[in-house]
């Protein structure tokens, strides 16, 4: 077999992936859970993450908790503790940044890192750097990570999946063809079902067969992103790393389930209002404003009904959005139906700016709202989320989000230290369980 390229690491890109991240966060802080099937997502009624023991028993992401109980009666089902997962995620990226400043935080549990040029500085081979990094991640966070080292992002993704969990795989350019020959083309990052079907029609089954197609063929039949994937499969570096922490968003989405399901108009609307308030908090944090809102209601039979509403101008404030969304809600809501979740998606996000004057006093009104919400945000920072909220969401704050809320509350929030409150806790993850 001919190598696709002769250079081993013209660039050295790592892809690092936390193994069953949420479930592992739980197992690592509570030894009782180690070696047992663990599932998180109890509060939502569906599996958000499952340990390898649970995966081995056939539990998949998104599976209903009630089905999991039948399939795997000894599974430990826990409510998600996003606070702890986020703290550990930040540590994950901080440990990677000990070695290189060039880190792309791809999601809460995976990142890309560029090691190019660090061999001399650190006096180690790229593989050695990756090994060290992996060892620090595994020991300091208490669970395993899968690492892939390659000349670019597409191949680094292939490498990290090669021996999951807990694997470290290096794919130098000159050995790339051996790996691609064994990889079905649909396993390549970015190649979806449609493209797969198309490639199959042309007799392309493996990633190598795709990589070996001539450039002219790829350019003729496929769009630019697939040409770029083709280039990376041939060992070139095309996809740049998006560096820095998440700085901006194209859309902001808030969805919350509540139990029991409800057909009370005021209550369901209050749930929606609370989501809108939460989305606005995030929007103001990133100094964005929205011009398009999608709202949806999910029935207890898991059917979604949604409507899109355009706003007359960009806003950051729930008051404006609620006003605009209210007619859509009235149109969608049916008193004969029980709902289990509401959601809102804010899009057409732009940088917040209220400089424009107008004839109708809109600018003055915006300035007032802006002053008001500056105070609301100050109160929130000092006393916690939802210290003050809109009357419209009152009912959603009256009762717990779920039936038997205590059972759905992450254990960390029940293990408060002196001086901690349910709103604010120390930003350090906690070991749980009895200490003998």
């Amino acid at each position: 077999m001919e190598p696709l390229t002769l250079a081993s690491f013209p660039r050295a890109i790592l892809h690092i992936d936390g193994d069953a991240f949420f479930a592992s966060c739980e197992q690592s802080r509570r030894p009782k859970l180690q070696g047992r099937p663990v599932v998180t997502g109890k509060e939502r009624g569906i599996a958000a993450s499952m340990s390898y023991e649970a995966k081995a028993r056939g539990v998949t992401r998104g599976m209903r908790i009630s089905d999991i109980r039948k399939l795997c009666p000894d599974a430990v089902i826990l409510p998600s503790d996003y606070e702890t997962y986020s703290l550990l995620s930040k540590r994950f990226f901080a440990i990677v940044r000990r070695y290189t400043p060039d880190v792309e935080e791809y999601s809460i549990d995976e990142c890309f890192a560029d090691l190019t040029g660090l061999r001399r500085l650190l006096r180690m081979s790229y593989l050695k750097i990756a090994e060290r990094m992996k060892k620090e991640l595994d020991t300091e966070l208490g669970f395993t990570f899968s690492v892939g080292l390659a000349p670019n992002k597409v191949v680094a993704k292939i490498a990290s999946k090669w021996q999951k969990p807990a694997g470290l795989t290096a794919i130098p350019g000159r050995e790339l063809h051996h790996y691609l020959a064994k990889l079905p083309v649909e396993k390549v990052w970015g190649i979806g079902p449609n493209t797969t079907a198309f490639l199959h029609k042309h007799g392309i089954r493996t990633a190598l067969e795709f990589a070996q197609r001539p450039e002219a063929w790829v350019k003729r039949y496929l769009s630019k992103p697939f040409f770029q994937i083709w280039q990376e499969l041939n060992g070139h570096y095309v996809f740049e790393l998006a560096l820095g922490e998440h700085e901006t968003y194209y859309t902001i989405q808030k969805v919350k389930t509540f139990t029991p399901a409800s057909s009370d108009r005021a209550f369901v609307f209050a749930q929606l209002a609370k989501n809108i308030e939460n989305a606005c908090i995030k929007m103001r944090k990133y100094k964005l404003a929205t011009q398009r809102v999608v709202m949806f209601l999910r029935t207890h039979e898991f059917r979604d009904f949604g409507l899109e509403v355009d706003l007359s101008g960009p806003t950051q404030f729930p008051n404006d959005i609620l006003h605009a969304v209210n007619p859509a809600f009235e149109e969608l809501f049916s008193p004969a139906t029980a709902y289990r979740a509401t959601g809102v998606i804010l899009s057409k996000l732009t940088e917040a700016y209220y400089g424009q004057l107008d004839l109708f006093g809109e600018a003055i009104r915006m300035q007032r709202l802006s002053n008001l919400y500056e105070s609301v945000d100050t109160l929130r920072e000092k006393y916690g989320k939802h210290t003050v909220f809109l009357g419209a969401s009152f009912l959603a704050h009256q009762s717990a989000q779920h039936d038997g809320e205590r059972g759905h509350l992450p254990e960390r929030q029940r293990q408060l230290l002196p001086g901690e409150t349910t709103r604010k806790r120390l930003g350090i993850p906690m070991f749980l369980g009895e200490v003998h």
Partner: protein
Amino acid sequence: MALTGLRSTHAVCTHVERLLDPEPPGYPTAYQLLLRQRDAALPVLGTVSAGFPSPADEELTDTMSLDDYLIGNKEATYILKVNGESMLGAGILPGDMLLVERGAEPRDGDIVIAQVDREWTMKFFRRRGRRVFLEAANQDFKPIFPTEELQVAAVVRAVIRKYA
């Protein structure tokens, strides 16, 4: 002014302002002034009396926050709430909060958090030659000699007791 050799305060001021500029035109970056904010710094020692010219700002440049004082490896530090009585003899009470460091190499005499029979256990780490074992601070507990590899999860770095 003595530093610059200039006699005009305005001239000195102009130079300093340029140095404060994050991207000064024509100045090498090495000469920029670093403005570092140290938040939550607590003085280790000393008091300042009222009425005298205060040297406070200069004196406080070498202080550290409680976080810096208590935490070595930030990414590997976890908290643990004590609920057993096995370390009473070491002055660790139920309800105390511990700062523990994961993945650190334990030394003889360290208090460690080990994993025994799928539970956390807190003991003194003892090393006698090539042999290691765990010892409780309470006479009622027998030392634990590991049959397989001893799984030390973390080393205790600090005990915090807050009187709320």
